[in-house]
């Protein structure tokens, strides 16, 4: 992570190298008769500075794919690259350090530590890795997600939407190479969801952030630059510049 200081430099990271690449990714849970093939050979590339949505029916392997890409889970076969680092073969310690340095997370629920205030939660990843928060970036992110007057609150004192916005701010603040979001708006009403999604899109447009998001919602998917579709552990389709309608149509076709 060489980029420090102003946001402009970070923006100029360029679209040259892909942020995340997966080759022939397979994941099998269990053994023998009980084996579940969650991923059956996925090849996918996520461009730097792009906002990608992953869609598919329940049980199609979306979360599994995300966990494998983020180094949260081990793969059965194939390779994953985050930037120039190959994940497969790394030990737990190295994976942890990699997540710490290069990856941001937004989960569907339970994103925040209940003992910490919003601000402490936002700064947590930086503190864990012993880095100083970039104050300019911090102010900008906080401003963007509109949390200025909520910084001293504990998570229980925040609404679900506000909690997710804190999670977004936390993911952005450490300037990760990629942010993985698993149904970040799954628990929110459409208005709060729309807010969170527009922050995500803003961060891609303005900060050049790379985001990979799993979602069930065609409207949410339409915020992305590109949508990929999974079924039974295989990549089956993809849409560029999606609209809610085009996503819905594709889904219908998939399920048919």
């Amino acid at each position, binding site marked *: 992570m060489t980029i420090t200081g102003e946001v402009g430099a970070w923006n100029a990271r360029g679209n040259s190298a892909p942020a995340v690449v997966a080759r022939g990714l397979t994941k099998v849970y269990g053994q023998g008769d009980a084996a579940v093939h969650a991923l059956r050979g996925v090849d996918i590339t996520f461009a730097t500075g792009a906002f990608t949505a992953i869609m598919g029916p329940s049980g199609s392997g979306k979360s599994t794919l995300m*966990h494998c890409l*983020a180094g*949260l*889970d081990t793969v059965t076969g194939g390779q994953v690259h985050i930037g120039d680092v190959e994940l497969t073969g790394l030990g*737990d*310690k190295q994976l*942890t*350090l990699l*997540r*710490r*340095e290069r990856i941001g*997370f937004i*989960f569907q*629920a*339970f*994103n925040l*530590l*209940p*003992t*910490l205030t919003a601000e402490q939660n936002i700064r*947590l*990843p930086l*503190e*864990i*890795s*012993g880095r100083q928060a970039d104050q300019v970036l911090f102010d900008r992110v906080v401003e963007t997600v509109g949390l200025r007057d909520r910084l001293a609150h*504990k998570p*229980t004192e925040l609404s679900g939407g506000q909690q997710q916005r804190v999670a977004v701010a936390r993911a952005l603040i450490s300037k990760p190479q990629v942010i993985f979001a698993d149904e970040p708006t799954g628990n929110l009403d459409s208005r709060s969801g729309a807010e969170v999604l527009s922050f995500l899109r803003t961060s891609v447009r303005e900060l050049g952030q790379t985001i990979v998001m799993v979602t069930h919602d065609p409207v949410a998917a339409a915020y992305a630059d590109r949508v990929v579709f999974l079924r039974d552990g295989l990549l089956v389709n993809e849409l560029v510049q999606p609209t809610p309608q085009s996503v819905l149509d594709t889904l219908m076709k998939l399920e048919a």
Partner: protein
Amino acid sequence: MLKTTLAGLRAHKLRLLLTSLAITLGVGFIAGTFVLTDTIETGFSRKFSAAADKIDVVVLPGETSDEPAVPADLLEKIREVEGVADVQGVVRGSAPLIGKDGKAVGDYPTAAVSILKGRLNRTEITSGTAPEKPAEAVLDANTAKTRGFAVGDTVTVLDSEGAKHEFTLVGLFDVGLDQELAYYGAVGFTAETAAKMTGQKGFREIDVAAAEGVPAETLRGSVSAAVGSGVEVKTGKRYAEDLAKANGADTKVLTLGLLLFGFVAMFVAALVIYNTFNILVAQRTREMALLRCIGATRKQVFGSVVLESAVVGLVSSVLGLLTGLGLGAGALAVISRTGLEVPTEGVALAPRTVAVGMVLGIVVTVVAALLPARAATRVAPIAALRSQVEENTFRAGVLRLVFAGLFLAAGAGVTAFAVSTGPGESELFMAMAGGAVTFLGVLILGPVMVKPLSAVAGWVPRRLFGVPGRLAVDNSRRNPKRSATTTVALTVGVALMTLISVLTSTMRATYGAKLDEQFPVDYMVQVQGDEGSFPRALAEDLRTRPELASVVALRRTDAKAGAKGNEFEVGTFTPAAGFSPKATTGSFGDLKPGTVAVGDEAAKALGVKVGDALPVTTTKDGEVRLTVVALFSEADALIPEVTVPHGDFDRYFGALDDGAIFANVKDGVAEENARKAVEAAAQPYPTAMVISSTELRGEFDEALDMMLMIITGLLGLAVLISLLGIANTLSLSVHERTRESALLRALGLTRPQLRRMLSVEALVLGVIGALVGVALGVVFGWAATSTMTTGVIFQLPAGQVLAFVALSGLAGVLAAVLPARRAARASIVDSLAAG
């Protein structure tokens, strides 16, 4: 409902076991106490009755008789009684055995006993034969071993006049369970020799064997008629029963003492159980709400928690009883290793032990779970539908503060009153009662104190361990009630340990200062057992030694003094430079011929003060009237309670031998040279024991250390149980925070960091518990010492106290090892999915 509960228990076998362990240890200790003392008791009574089987009738000194001996002439009288097959008297007294170094062995003279012959003999000869001739003796096996004597050797024994006699050692014997003989060591002779050596006129007892076909009871009647009043006549069976009863009273003290520690452990276990069930109920709020949703009544929910506790209680009590059996047997093995004579056979759980263990285990567990069970009934069905886990926010209620304030004020008040009233037994109890009440106040106030205390305890870890450290300190106070109960369990043990260590170190300091004051001499030469005297030549010899600066001889005798004519110890000391007893009133400078100095206690008994006249009956000078010129503290001075000038003493009582000698070493003389000089002078007098002040202090220190060690060891159990509590709380908290840990791991916390986080949390909990415990222990240790005796020099064992705090923290970290490992091992993905 029953099925649901049991299924829940089966699903969490490990948790059940961990929870049970606390009660298991408590019950185990109590059961172990019973097993230990029961075994000792039955062992003793078995031996007593085995010994008594040989005797049909025994004649003992009457309870009211002045002379604690059976008159010797009764022996012949009994021999004449119809139906007596054999009768022999048992002689017992003391006869110092001379060791190979030429000095009497041990601190006290060896006991001397007569070895009976034939059927009446109860002494077991382990090698060689019993003494048959006047010049033969036997020795107890233990003394023979430690002093290096073997059968065939010649041993020298002093008679009651101090004259040396030589005997051939013909055998060794086992003292059995006779504690007196075991303690002093024993040499056995024929009856006549024993009487001669000890100078005893009567018998300790007379044993009678009945002729064929004469019932013991009949014989008892006829013997009783023959000996008349003044002595007690019992059948052998009855005698054994009485001995067993007396011994039972001794073991009862041991039982009560040990049980005290057992109850402390049980109390701590109850706290642990209470906390565990509280957490379990909190964690199962959803499950219980779901049960309520589908129609379970409050009563059923309450019942399910109580039932669970009853099962835990049952399981742990059974395990506890088994543990107790092992503990009891182990303790006996350890005790018999140390050379003490204890029975080790027939270790068993008496029905009483089983009943007490089961009832105590189950009742304590169920009662401790009642409050949590009640909390469970308060769970509203709607809670099942809430998705977000509610953080336990704690606010210090007014009621809590009021109650805590009342208890603390009452405790402090009672203790302050006791301390200000001054030393005394009732004051000591009052101070300790105050301590107990204060502890209750602390127990109530606990949750309020957790936050500030965790700030203190967490100050260093916060700065030392980075993010994991900070998160850990936050976690430690996130549920104040839970943390308070967890730590208070540790507080109990640490407070008691601190109290004991404050007591011992204060006693050490106080005794040391008193020793300096009242024993301002380097060496004391005393007769073995402090009874008797040695020729003045010894003191004369010491005075010629260049290594010594001053030598004071003490002479004393018993004489009637005062208007009532009661006996007092009257004596004198030979003056020497640097030896001047301190007077509380008057002055020793005025101790001229015709005057007397009196100790404070004696003065009280005599009713005299400085300036009064004191009549003393002398042996050479009739009754003399002496003027009291000084009073002194008997506890602090070394001189006799009625002290006259040494010239006067010789005139009043004749030139008596010296009873004790004090010697001071000249400046610059090495310790070992001085000691050699004193020992060389004492060498010709076998019973003259040389004691140095450093030795005396060392012995006292050793005894204190021993006591400290034993008590600390016994309290260690309570501490161990509270550590189980920490481990339990932590593992339940870890379980509760599965998702949180996963989130932290996803955000980049490494496994070692996660483990460290939990260790630091446990460390903080341990230190909080220890801090409170140490504070209570020091305060009430101080209160206890200042209500115990006057003139205490309070001493804070800072090193030990700091060690308690450090060890508690360390122990907390140890308790966290397993929960932390489990948390760190959990897969992130699985944990994120966990509901």
